[in-house]
């Protein structure tokens, strides 16, 4: 049985346990042995993107210490995977990012599956998150996985490629611009009439969810949780 390491990300560690649980469920269903190195914390993305290079470098080194022994590291976050792949070489010279796979990359490219045996009888719209799509180049991999889910009704999201306005500390530093971007994203999400809005990053989903919670619209859900569902 092949062994993979799970990097749950600090956001999921703090707020969203259901997402990494779902990743474990899907990977084990496909016959992988999942390891959870307990010393993991944060990839350093917030520090790097906010301009704190030294802090980010220390966290990148710690990531290397925790995950250095694994051939494959799976994470349910496009932006954290992009952080390791794009920024670690500049910060620490580490090439570990090549072994960090966002979940859909691992499933489609490494495991070679699109149908993971899920069933989710709901209407779902999909938001392609910026870092996953543009920095990591996920393309339609998450969508291909979702299309293979039994019972799912996928509906298109208008202006899907537009950023939701999260951008880490951008949401605080440029709160008004961020809120204007979010308002448009929420309106487009609501216009789909879907029950759920799925994405590959819980940080973006926290942002969209925080808006939808006030304006109404689909419930945010990480697509891993849809892939784990057999209901």
């Amino acid at each position: 049985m092949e062994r993979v390491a799970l990097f749950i990300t600090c956001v999921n560690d703090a707020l969203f346990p259901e997402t990494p649980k779902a990743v474990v469920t899907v990977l084990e269903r496909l016959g992988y042995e999942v390891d959870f190195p307990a010393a993991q914390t944060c990839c350093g993305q917030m520090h790097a993107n906010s301009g704190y290079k030294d802090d980010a470098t220390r966290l990148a080194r710690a990531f290397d210490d925790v995950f250095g022994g694994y051939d494959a590291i799976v994470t349910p976050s496009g932006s954290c995977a992009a952080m390791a792949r794009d920024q670690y070489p500049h910060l620490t010279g580490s090439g570990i990012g090549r072994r960090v796979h966002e979940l859909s990359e691992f499933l489609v490219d490494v495991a070679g599956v699109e149908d993971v045996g899920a069933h989710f009888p709901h209407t779902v719209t999909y938001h392609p998150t910026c870092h996953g799509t543009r920095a990591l180049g996920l393309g339609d991999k998450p969508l291909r996985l979702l299309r293979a889910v039994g019972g799912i009704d996928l509906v298109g999201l208008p202006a899907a490629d537009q950023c939701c306005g999260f951008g880490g500390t951008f949401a605080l530093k440029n709160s008004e611009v961020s809120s204007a971007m979010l308002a448009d994203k929420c309106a487009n999400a609501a216009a789909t009439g879907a029950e759920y809005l799925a994405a590959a990053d819980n940080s973006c989903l926290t942002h969209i969810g925080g808006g939808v919670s006030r304006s109404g619209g689909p419930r945010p859900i990480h697509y891993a949780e849809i892939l784990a569902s057999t209901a």
Partner: protein
Amino acid sequence: MNDIVPAASLIPADAPFPKAAKVALGMPQLRKNLAHATGTIRAKRAKVAGELDDWEQLRDTAAAVKAGVQRRLPELAMRFEERATAAGAVVHWARDAAEANAIAARLVREAGAEEVVKVKSMATQEIELNEHFAAEGLRAFETDLAELIVQLAEDKPSHILVPAIHYNRTEIRDIFDQRMGDAPAGLTDDPAALAEAARLHLRRRFLSATVAVSGANFAIAETGSLVVVESEGNGRMCLTMPETLISIVGIEKLLPETADLEVFMQLLPRSSTGERMNPYTSVWTGVREGDGPRHVHVILLDNGRTNVLADEVGRQALSCIRCSACLNVCPVYERTGGHAYGHVYPGPIGAILAPQLEPGRHDDLPYASSLCGACYEVCPVKIDIPEVLVHLRQQGPHAAGERAAMGAAEAVMARPRLWRTALRAARLGSMPWRRKGFVRRMPWPASKWTVSRDLPVPPKESFRDWWKERER
């Protein structure tokens, strides 16, 4: 008929970006105009860029040519001077805006003129040539339609390619009617009528001007030629009719050879106006007897560019060909417009260029981005704008409070046991909100989040607890 209120006068140019952006966000007509215009150009660009199957190779080639120029800049600039001089041009070197303006003003006076007609030029906007000329008692008349609108409105450009993008045609009708002087009576907001009014107005200027001022899209080192790419033909008039032509050219505009134009002339029109080919491309080399201006001057402008060149990551900003594709796709620019950036180069490219051209100013601009990467995706010369934004954030100063908070977060995250303790504390501390599931109001600075979004509450059981239970 409405009074003309220049948009730039409402948005505080010296205010930090978030503050200026907030003002712009509160201007519904501005936002409507911007969303409509950027949306239209965006769609046109995507269509014509998609027609070329070697688009990605063109981008790679353009990026490589520009990187090569940056490595050989002194050599190429000297060669340009040598060839242009041999062809009868006079080449001047300007260290900064003050030097360039002084040279240009002197040349205008030496030509015995007090007025000049202008080709649309970002370099002259950058050095504030019009303002400098006015202070010297000289007058500069913009002849590009959008620049004319902005000049008549006593406004400032808000976009690199479409400087009047923040006006709709009704507002433009009002500007012409009240400010042009010779606008026809009963002018409507029909685009053809507006263009005709501008054409008649400008024709008189072209026929009387003896000096023209231009910039250049490209400067060819191999031949000493300058190239202007335009749509309206006003540039061609300025470049051919007056006796004296003064071109102010940033040194990063150099290209090694004429053959390089093959790449850039495919990329630039498609990326800027969304056209396969632009209507007018003018190429001139020094002076030609009996054809065009008899006195040709070229002012090569540094104005901070060699400082940018010294930064190995940041220098790619000098590859910019001023197409504006990044502005048109930027979700931030689309909502705030250009004035909020407080610099002649707005949008994503401005956010990396302005702080580098004027170090110590515009430190807020690298943060005017969610790092969504839409700009990098469309950039015809593949400037990795998100990379440079992050790089500049890492160079720039940080507020003490934020520095402390980030340091504290890192200190916790670098110690797994402390991290787990902190998460446990957060779960306990948030218990009062657990039933509700979210927090609606938080004190500053978290209020910056809760102003428009609810905050989720940590779960009762963490993933770690679940995992430990499972392992047992």
